[in-house]
Structures are given as structure tokens and as C-alpha cells.
């Protein structure tokens, strides 16, 4: 079944009204019925109204034909958000056994200018699901292409995760994350995908098995840009549901200490150290010294309780969250001084 290739842009300029197309002469268009008192009526362009009136005609009569198929393309291009049109197009595809590869190509052509359209991505998923595991490479390629245009496109990531879980293709995913992080270490979507792969890939050993190498990779990323929130969150995530191992891993506190020693970009280092302490980590004297060495403008003598001291520093150096650090300080257990 032929579909017109690559003519979506042409259509606008050369469009012949449907009323003048001989192949549509037997169809009576059905105008939109907004009822007797429409509220906020939309000022449709004549070509839009006409297209949708003809769509309604074939939709209500359930005509699943080649001309209906072409019409759905026109309607989609005029309003890609109309999920009823997309749905009817899918029904026509099934009835006519339309070529699914052609359909992927069609979606691919209009994807760039509709990259955040829910209906488009759902349609892509529907086609890919029908094609099954054979579609894996194409879908990974497609999402890779879309992510090269916008590395944080939520729909693209969502589709990519669905492809991996439903159809497979995990082999190169960790490398792909690595590549994206190489391009932009601040890309939180790539960090999230890394977590997704590390925890769910059937080809890797699972979180515990991967933890050691992931911790090392993450620490390197932190030391390169300690002001980057993503790796700090990722590091904590590696110890999800395992607080005991988290506070007992010497690398956790040592990365905080390293960053504190640079005396710059240490907000996350401080908050992480605070969290470690709150969960039972006992800081040695060098942590006390590192905090003292920060020399932040403070309103009084440093607190003998390290947790309180950290909160007070954070109130100064992370003033946007001053109220939060005051609240955290108020919630600290009353402990004997760590000295």
C-alpha cells in the first residue's frame, strides 16, 4: 500500500481543497457541532475546518480506505494533538495491512517539529510493538537521533526505556550513557538512564555487582565538578535501601573531605556529610578541622556538635535554602559532642 513519501511540507503550499478533489466528490463533509452556545470557540482556518469535516465523514462511517489514510496524514499535520485521528489511522493501518516500516518513516519525518507530542510518541510505540524485537535497532537509532537534538527530551527517554524493557537492546546502553555524560556531565537525564541500565539490564550483574565501579566513576565526576548535583544524587542512589553499607563505605566521607579541602563548591559535600552523620557515621577529627578551615562568616563560635556546625555553615553558603538548614539543625538529635 503506497503512502506519499516526504510530502508533508509540500502539502501546505500546494493544497487543493477537498471539495475540489474528484476522489472526494461522493463524500458529504460533516461540520463540527459545538452545540448551541459555544464557549471560547476557536477561529479555525478554512482548510482546517474542511479537513476535519471530511475526517468526521469517514470516521463516523468507519471508512478504512486509502483516501481515509491519506486524510489522516493531512489532519495530523494540521493538528498532531488530535488523538482520535491518530487512533483512526491505526485502525486503517490494521485493516489495510499498511506497511509498518513506511509508518515509522512517516513518524520519523514529522518527529523533529513535534518532538514533544504525546500522540506521536504513543503512535511510534504502537508501531514498534507490532514490529517486535526486529524494531530494536531502529528505535534505539531514532531516540538517539532525537536526543542528539535535545539530550533531555523526556518523551525520547521514556520511549528508549520502553524499547529496552519491551524489546531489548541493552548491549550498548551503558556506553551510550557514558558518551552522553562525556558530552555533558551535567545531563541529569543521562545519569538517570545510567541508573536505569545499572539496575535493570539483564546483561549486567545488578546494582550490588556494579556498585564498586559505579562509585569510582561517580566520584571522579564529582571531583571534576563538585557543584554538579547529579553525581551526588547518583552516588547516594547506588546505596538505595542499604544505608548501613553507605555510611560504612569510606569513599563516601572521603569524597566529601576532598571537596571540602579545596574550599570551593562544597555545598553538596557539606550536605552529604550532614546526611552521613544523621544516619550514624562517626566523623573523625579531620572533618572537624576541614569545617573549621572553611572560615565562613559566622555569627558566633563554631558549634561543638559537628552536625550543628555544618548546618550553620550551610545557612551561610547556601542562603537560598537557609530556612531548610535552620530546620535541619532543629531536627538534629541532641548528641554528646563528637570530641
Amino acid at each position, binding site marked *: 500500500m503506497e503512502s506519499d513519501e516526504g510530502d508533508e511540507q509540500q502539502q501546505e503550499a500546494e493544497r487543493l481543497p477537498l471539495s475540489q478533489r474528484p476522489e472526494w466528490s461522493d463524500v458529504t463533509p460533516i461540520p463540527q457541532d459545538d452545540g448551541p452556545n459555544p464557549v471560547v470557540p476557536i477561529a479555525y482556518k478554512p482548510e482546517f475546518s474542511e479537513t476535519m469535516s471530511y475526517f468526521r465523514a469517514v470516521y463516523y462511517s468507519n471508512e478504512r480506505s486509502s483516501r481515509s489514510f491519506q486524510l489522516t496524514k493531512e489532519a495530523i499535520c494540521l493538528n498532531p494533538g488530535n*488523538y482520535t485521528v491518530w487512533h483512526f489511522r491505526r485502525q486503517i493501518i490494521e485493516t489495510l495491512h499498511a506497511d509498518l516500516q513506511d509508518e515509522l518513516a512517516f513518524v520519523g519525518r514529522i518527529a523533529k517539529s513535534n518532538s514533544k507530542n504525546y500522540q506521536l510518541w504513543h503512535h511510534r510505540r504502537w508501531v514498534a510493538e507490532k514490529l517486535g524485537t526486529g524494531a530494536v535497532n531502529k528505535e534505539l537509532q531514532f531516540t538517539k537521533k532525537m536526543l542528539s537534538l535535545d539530550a533531555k527530551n523526556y518523551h525520547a*527517554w521514556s520511549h528508549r526505556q520502553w524499547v529496552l524493557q519491551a524489546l531489548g537492546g541493552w548491549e550498548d546502553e551503558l556506553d551510550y550513557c557514558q558518551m552522553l555524560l562525556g558530552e555533558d556531565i551535567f545531563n*541529569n537525564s543521562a545519569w538517570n538512564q545510567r541508573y536505569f541500565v545499572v539496575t535493570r539490564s539483564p546483561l549486567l550483574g545488578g546494582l550490588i555487582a556494579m556498585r564498586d565501579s559505579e562509585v569510582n566513576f561517580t566520584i571522579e565526576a564529582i571531583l571534576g565538578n563538585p557543584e554538579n*548535583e547529579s553525581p551526588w*544524587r547518583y552516588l*547516594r*542512589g547506588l546505596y538505595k535501601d542499604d544505608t548501613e553499607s553507605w555510611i560504612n563505605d569510606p569513599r563516601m566521607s572521603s569524597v566529601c573531605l576532598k571537596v571540602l579541602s579545596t574550599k570551593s563548591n562544597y555545598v553538596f559535600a557539606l550536605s552529604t556529610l550532614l546526611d552521613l552523620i544523621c544516619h550514624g557515621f562517626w566523623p573523625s577529627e579531620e572533618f572537624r578541622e576541614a569545617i573549621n578551615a572553611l572560615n565562613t562568616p559566622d555569627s558566633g563560635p563554631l558549634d561543638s556538635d559537628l552536625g550543628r556546625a555544618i548546618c550553620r555553615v550551610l545557612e551561610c553558603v547556601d542562603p537560598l535554602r537557609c*530556612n531548610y538548614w535552620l530546620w535541619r539543625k532543629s531536627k538534629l538529635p541532641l548528641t554528646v559532642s563528637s570530641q
Partner: protein
Amino acid sequence: MHNGSNLASTYCALAILKAVGYNFANIDSKSILTSMRNLQQHDGSFMPIHFGAEKDLRFVYCAAAICFLLEDWSGMDRERAKAYILNCQSYDGGFGLTPGSESHGGGTYCAVASLRLMGFIEDNVLSKNTSSSIIDLPLLLSWCLQRQAADGGFQGRANKPSDTCYAFWIGSVLRMLGGYNLIDKEALRGFLLTCQSQYGGFGKCPGDLPDLYHSFYGYTAFSLLEEPGLNPLCAELGMTEFSALGI
């Protein structure tokens, strides 16, 4: 079936009717709730329409809001919905729109608001000393507060630019948990004012032309800030308290 219902439309319709004080006794709740039950999936999520569409937290929220407005929870299996929501909490404390996806302001709002509406999170939970919670509350709090960027605005995801609407999505979560006072209100106010258009309304980022969506959320954000002249907001429903009560 040519004029099938859509969960999002149903939620909007009911919210609008509530806001204008329509008598809900005249609404065919039974049909709505029956129809809705058929939209819930095995994993607890919801599809918006019966003939197939994407499924994610947005529609769980729509379902919860509808049941809440109709005061009838027969429309959904709350336990299953809760399970789905919990699966959406990311390793960093926020919630993604689907399990495994990146934590996101909109997803986090849908998650927390749904849990609140369904009765799984108590009022002002942060001020209570209960350490047991079905979600990782301290991590969620930390994530939400970290979303306030240096320019005072809120971002929807880590390392992304601030956007007017997240002052509502994230601000609401903080309000629902009892932590709204932990933000820097002055800084937020300053950011939002830079997003206000000379023509009225709000745009997404400073200097942008206004649109209805960002204008609505700009106003709700100011309501959360208790701006004089604005009515108090019911964060769970995204409507004024008066509207939520049908006044």
C-alpha cells in the same frame, strides 16, 4: 464508539463545574466511575481513553482528583494506584512520570497530590515526628528544595533552566507536605515577576511572551506565596480553596 471520554477532560470538566458552583447531585457519577475503573491497568496506572494511549502518573492524578471531587472511591483501586506511584519514586527522591524515568516536577506533583487525595499522606506530615512514611520523605524534601535555582525560580529537573510553572508543581508539593516555608519566598517572587509579561500574564522564562498555561501557574504560584489580593489555594486540586468547596 466515536465520542469516547477522556480522563483528563473529565477531570477538567468536573473541576470547572466545581469552581462555578454547579450542583454535583446532577452529575451521573456512577457512569463516570464505572468507565474510570476500566481505565486502570494491572500495574495500577491509568490510561486516559479506552482505545489505548500512553499511561503515566498524570492520569493517576486525574483519576484520584475525580474520585475526590465526586466523593466516591469506587472508581479506582487505591492500593494498586499507590503501588504504581511508589514505583515512580526515583533514586534521588523525586518522582518520574513512569517507573524508571527521570524525576520531574510534574510527575512529583501528580504523585504527592494523588497520595494526599487518596489519604495516604497525612496533613503537614513534615511537622509530625513519625519516621514511617510510604515514600522517602527526607529525600523528596531535599530534592524539591534543591529545585530552587540561583535565579530564585524553580526548575523541573536537576540542571535545567527555571520555568514559571514549577513554582506551582514543586511549590505545591512543599505546601502539601508542610514544608513551603523552607523555600526562599523573596527570591521566588523576584523570579516570577521577571516572567510576568508587559501585556499581562506569565511566560515560561524571563522575557517570554505569555501563554495561558504559564499564566495560570504563575497565579497559583503567587497564591502559594500568599500574595495580597489572591485567594488561598487548595494545592491538591490546583484550585482555590473556595472553588474546591464549591463556594
